[in-house]
């Protein structure tokens, strides 16, 4: 489809993990006032995740839970404080930014601010090819044209500027730019939340089609659980830097176990009238990650919290039957089936 061959390591076609995080943590040093010592803020705490070829990992959580830090680590923009990032099973620490960027590409939330207003669409989409020194000028232009067809943009937009395009068209440009190097993983951070409802559906459909055609792995970050349920094959729920529950989408939606997951699912407002506004969680917001609550970080907002939850952090209980895990005292090891 794209007449440019990209030199690089041979790509084995399998459903193995393309991109993997193993025990990744990231700590920022924050200073609350100029006169106080800086304190550590654990934005991401011991996270292990896998993105497989042709699958979509959905990451959900409230603002401030560390989703964006995690996506920066996945994009290789931020080195983790501890833990490993692996591509095809090999650690990437020594591979360098350019090699990483060939294989993992981002699509950002807001196509109004993520495209350079002074470059034409052809320049924006072709920039990764130029940076990586792929092909000559004519070959790159040809590749860009082919990519436009691929994301459903008319060829006449090649020499227009982003401001001449609608929001949906801009997001298509951003997707074309991300895909031009034929990456194996695309990290989509809220890819549709800046778009209108009818346009959102078009972009989600495009991502679904591209994923199937190109066998792309995808990490999709969204606060819209209806979208995540529709798109994701696997879900990870994040709370205050930790993945508190993960599993296949179906299992998570049919049998959510962690009280936080249940609360998130209940807060989905469907377009079928008559359900009413869901009961809200106690507590107004996510706690300050600098003062992490002792024990389970979720206990101040958890309707089922016990004394154990207030003192001892829960350990990870792996569900052997369907994969995935949950970190909650309500599900001690061995009783995972009871839910």
């Amino acid at each position, binding site marked *: 489809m794209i007449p440019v061959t990209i030199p690089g390591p041979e790509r084995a076609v399998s459903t193995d993990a393309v991109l993997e995080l193993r025990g990744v943590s990231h700590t920022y040093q924050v200073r609350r006032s100029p006169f106080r010592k800086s304190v550590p803020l654990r934005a991401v705490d011991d996270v292990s995740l896998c993105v497989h070829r042709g699958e979509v990992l959905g990451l959900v959580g*409230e*603002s401030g839970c560390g989703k964006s830090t995690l996506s920066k680590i996945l994009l290789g923009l931020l080195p983790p404080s501890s833990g490993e990032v692996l591509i095809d099973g090999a650690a990437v620490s020594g591979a360098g930014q350019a090699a990483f960027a060939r294989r993992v590409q981002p699509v950002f939330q807001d196509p109004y601010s993520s495209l350079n207003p002074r470059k034409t669409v052809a320049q924006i989409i072709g920039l990764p090819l130029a940076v990586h020194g792929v092909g000559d000028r004519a070959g790159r232009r040809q590749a860009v044209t082919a990519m436009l067809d691929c994301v459903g943009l008319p060829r006449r937009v090649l020499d227009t500027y982003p401001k001449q395009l*609608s*929001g949906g068209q801009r997001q298509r440009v951003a997707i074309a730019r991300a895909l031009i190097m034929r990456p194996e993983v695309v990290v989509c951070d809220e890819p549709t939340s800046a778009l*209108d*409802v*009818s*346009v*959102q*559906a*078009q972009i*989600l*459909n495009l991502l*679904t*089609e591209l994923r199937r055609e190109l066998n792309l792995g995808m990490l999709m970050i969204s*606060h*819209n*659980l*209806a*979208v995540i*349920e*529709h*798109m994701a*094959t696997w879900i990870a729920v994040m709370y205050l830097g930790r993945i508190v529950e993960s599993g296949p*989408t*179906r299992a998570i*939606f049919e049998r959510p176990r962690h009280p936080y997951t249940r*609360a*998130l699912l*209940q*807060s*989905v*407002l*469907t*377009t*079928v*009238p*008559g*359900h*009413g*506004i*869901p*009961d*809200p*969680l106690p507590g*107004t*917001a996510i706690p300050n990650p600098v003062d992490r609550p002792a024990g389970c970080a979720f206990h101040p907002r958890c309707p089922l919290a016990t004394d154990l939850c207030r003192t001892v952090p829960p350990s990870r209980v792996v569900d052997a039957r369907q994969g995935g895990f949950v970190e909650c005292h309500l599900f001690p090891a061995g009783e995972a089936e009871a839910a």
Partner: protein
Amino acid sequence: MTPILEVEGLCVDIPTPAGTLHAVRDVSFRVGKGEILCIVGESGCGKSLTSLALMDLLPGRARREARRLSFAGTDLGTLSQKAMRNLRGNRMAMIFQEPMTSLNPAFTIGNQMAEALRCHTRASAAEARERAAELLALVGVPAGRDRLNQYPHQLSGGLRQRVMIAMALMGSPDLLIADEPTTALDVTIQAQILHLLEDLRDRTGLSIVLITHDLGVVAQLADRVVVMYAGSVVEEGPVDEVFGRPAHPYTRGLLDCVPVPGRTPPGSLLGSIPGVVPSLIGAIPGCPFAARCSFAADACLTRQPPLRPAPLQPAAGHSFRCVLEGSA
């Protein structure tokens, strides 16, 4: 239900170098006492300008015209600037989308809340503060009295939106206009704010006009809904009717675009509406949706059909603007 707000034939025109932009075209609706009316539509459909026109807060060049614009028996169309200022923020209040940018960062919460009351009444500073503390408790801000001395940056997004709501309630309004009040918030906080609005309506009989593009919010919160497209109302009625039996092709298309957990098969392609919204400069001869409508016939290109009752439940007050029969 006695209407608190009656809007008939509201138009908003904005002169541009390319011609006059008719942003709101002949919009009519009523809001009953204690009713929650949602105006839903995509960006550029005129829903925000409609709300600003009601409050007489349109940007400088925009012009407002209406056959009838009546709030609790007062004709807003002929009201002087001064009389309008007395109503605004007092009996008609508005909350905006971004709680981060619509609070003044340089003043304390208590200061800003008290101002809302002291502009309109002879309340003393102490009385205004007392009322502010009461309202913060009403909207569920924990430790409200201490918050009065805090600045907006010390509050989370959800708390700021509660402060905005409390501030709008300072003058005991009869009508609250909320423009996308939960768009910037997390889903868990969104549920809290929507609960709060519903609760305020139940307890104080407040009427609410909620402007949103989130169909889920409309489905669960609204009593009645107005669907706007390209400046016009295309469908209107009780939310159960409009969302349960949508009559206009645009409403149906919009509802198909949103995945419903448990109903839409995961991984399937969602419905979408091809094409783009027409330019709002100058007149649109036929139905504004005709170019994107898969049912469009020749008649659609020449004249804009009037709003008429939907065939299935004509008594329910469900009307739509389309030449097709609603069941098509």
